[in-house]
C-alpha cells in the first residue's frame, strides 16, 4: 500500500488523532487516553496489520514527557509511528500495550526506569537497569555530578 493510502486509512481508524505523512513513516500523534484503542485497531485491521512492535522510545520534550512507538506490519512490510505526550511530569501515566504486544513489557520497563513514565496495567513495572535510589537519567533536568561530558 502507498504511504498516502496508509495515512488515509490511519486517519479513519484514529479520527481524533493527528495523522502526518512523515519523511519515512506515517506518524500518528494521539492522546494517551485513546492510545490503547487506536493501537488495538491498527493491530487488528487487515490492511494495517501491525503485528510487530519494533521499539518504544521514552521522550522528554521539556515541559512534557512522551512515548514513541515504532510498529511494523510483517504482512505488508510497512511501519507506522505512534506518538503520545503527557504534561504531568510528577506522575506521568500512559496505558501499557503489553496486552497487544508482549514485547512491550521490557521496552516499557526501560522507559519507566530511565524516564519515570508509569504504564497503567503493566504486569511487572519495576526498575530495570538502575536501583530505586537513582533519579530518571534520561530526563533533561536530571543532574549528573560525575558526568565529565556535560557542559
Amino acid at each position, binding site marked *: 500500500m502507498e504511504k498516502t493510502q496508509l495515512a488515509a486509512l490511519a486517519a479513519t481508524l484514529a479520527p481524533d488523532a493527528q495523522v502526518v505523512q*512523515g519523511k*519515512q513513516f506515517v506518524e500518528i500523534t494521539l492522546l494517551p487516553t485513546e492510545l490503547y484503542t487506536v493501537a488495538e485497531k491498527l493491530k487488528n485491521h487487515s490492511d494495517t496489520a501491525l503485528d510487530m512492535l*519494533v521499539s518504544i522510545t521514552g521522550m522528554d520534550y521539556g515541559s512534557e514527557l512522551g512515548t*514513541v512507538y515504532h510498529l511494523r506490519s510483517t504482512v505488508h512490510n510497512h511501519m507506522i509511528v505512534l506518538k503520545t505526550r503527557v504534561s504531568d511530569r510528577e506522575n506521568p501515566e500512559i496505558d501499557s500495550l503489553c496486552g497487544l*504486544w508482549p*514485547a512491550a513489557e521490557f521496552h516499557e520497563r526501560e522507559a519507566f526506569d530511565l524516564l519515570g513514565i508509569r504504564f497503567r496495567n503493566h504486569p511487572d513495572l519495576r526498575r*530495570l*537497569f538502575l536501583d530505586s535510589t537513582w533519579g530518571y537519567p534520561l530526563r533533561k533536568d536530571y543532574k549528573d555530578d560525575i558526568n565529565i561530558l*556535560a557542559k
Partner: protein
Amino acid sequence: MEEAVKAPVPEQEEYVINMGPQHPSTHGVLRLVVSLRGETVRNVEPHIGYIHRGIEKMCESITYPQIIHLTDRMDYLSAHINNEAVCLAVENALGIEVSDRVKVVRTILSELTRIQSHQLFWATFGMDLGGLTCFFYGLRDREMILDIFEETCGGRMIVSYNCPGGLMNDIHPNFQKRTKEFISYFRKTLPEYDRLLTGNVIFQERLKNIGVVNREQAIAWGLTGPVGRASGFSCDVRKHNPYSAYDRVTFKEILYDEGDSFHRYKVRMDEMWESMNIIEQLIDNIPAGSYAEKMKPVIKLPEGEYYQSVETARGELGVYIVSDGNKNPYRVKFRSPNFVHLAPLNLMSQGSKIADLVAINGSLDLIIPDIDR
C-alpha cells in the same frame, strides 16, 4: 564425627538459585534468578544493568561522529555494523549519497563481521555444552578475520571504521588478497565445524525441541535475526529494506520452521555460507572512487526524526535519532536486538531442565553490553 544432617527439600517446594552475574555460560554480567522444582525450571527472572553505561544519555552531549565510537561498545561483535547504522542514519538525514566503493567495502566488512561473530558463537556454544575443542577451532579461524580488520581498520574488535560520509581511510592494499585467502581457507574449514559439532548425537539431543518459539510468538515478541528466522519469521533487513550494497548481491535468507535451539544454531551455520557468497560476489570488483565524501567539519542534522535499521549478527538494530538542529542529537534510541531477545527467555525455558537453560541462553547468543547499553 557427627552424622551429616540431610537438608530436606520437598519435591513440591520451589527452590531458588542465582545464576550469575559472574557465570561462564551467561557470557557476561547477566544475572538470572531461577526458580526450580526439582530440576525443572519454573520461572526465570533476568536482572540486568550491571554494565549499564547510559550510552543513550551520553549521546545527547556528544557529536554525531563521536557517537559512532560508542556504538562499537554495545554489541562489540557486530561493531562494524553498529557503526554503519548510525552513519546511514546521518547520511540519509543530510541527503548524502556515498560512493559505490564505500557501499561495497561496507558490505564486505559487515559480512566479515557476521562471520566472525558466528564463529565466536559456535566456539562458545560448543563450550557451553561441554565441547571444549570448538572453542579453539572457532577462535583460531576468527583470528584471520581480526587480522584483516587490524590491517584495514586499525582495530580488531572495536573498529570504528565507518564515519558519516564514508570510511575513515581507504582499504589496505592487502585487503582483497587476504579476504580471498580467508574465504578459500574457510570454505574448507567450515565443513569441519559440522563434523565436529553439528552431527554429534549428544549435541543434537541436548538442543532439539528445547526452547521452542513458534512463528506467531516470534513476531509478537519482536524476535529478529537468527532467533526469529529459526522460527520461520522472515525478518532479514538486508532482504526487506536493503541498504549499502545488499540490493546488488544475490543471497538466500535462511529460514527454518522448527524454532528450537538446534535450528537457531543451524541458521547461524548456514548464514556463514551465505556471507561468504556475498563477499565473493563483491570482492573482485570493488569500484574505484573516493572512500569518503566531503563533510562539513561540524555535522548538524536538520530538525526532525530519523530511523534506520540494519541487520547485525544478532538481529535488527534500529537507530532512532531525534534532532533539534544542533550538533548534538536531542535524543538517540538504540533498539538493540539482544534486549528484545532477553525478554522471552522465561517463556522459552519454563518447563525445561536447568541444564537446558544454559543451552537456550547460548542459542540466543546474547551480548550483555548490548542489552544494558
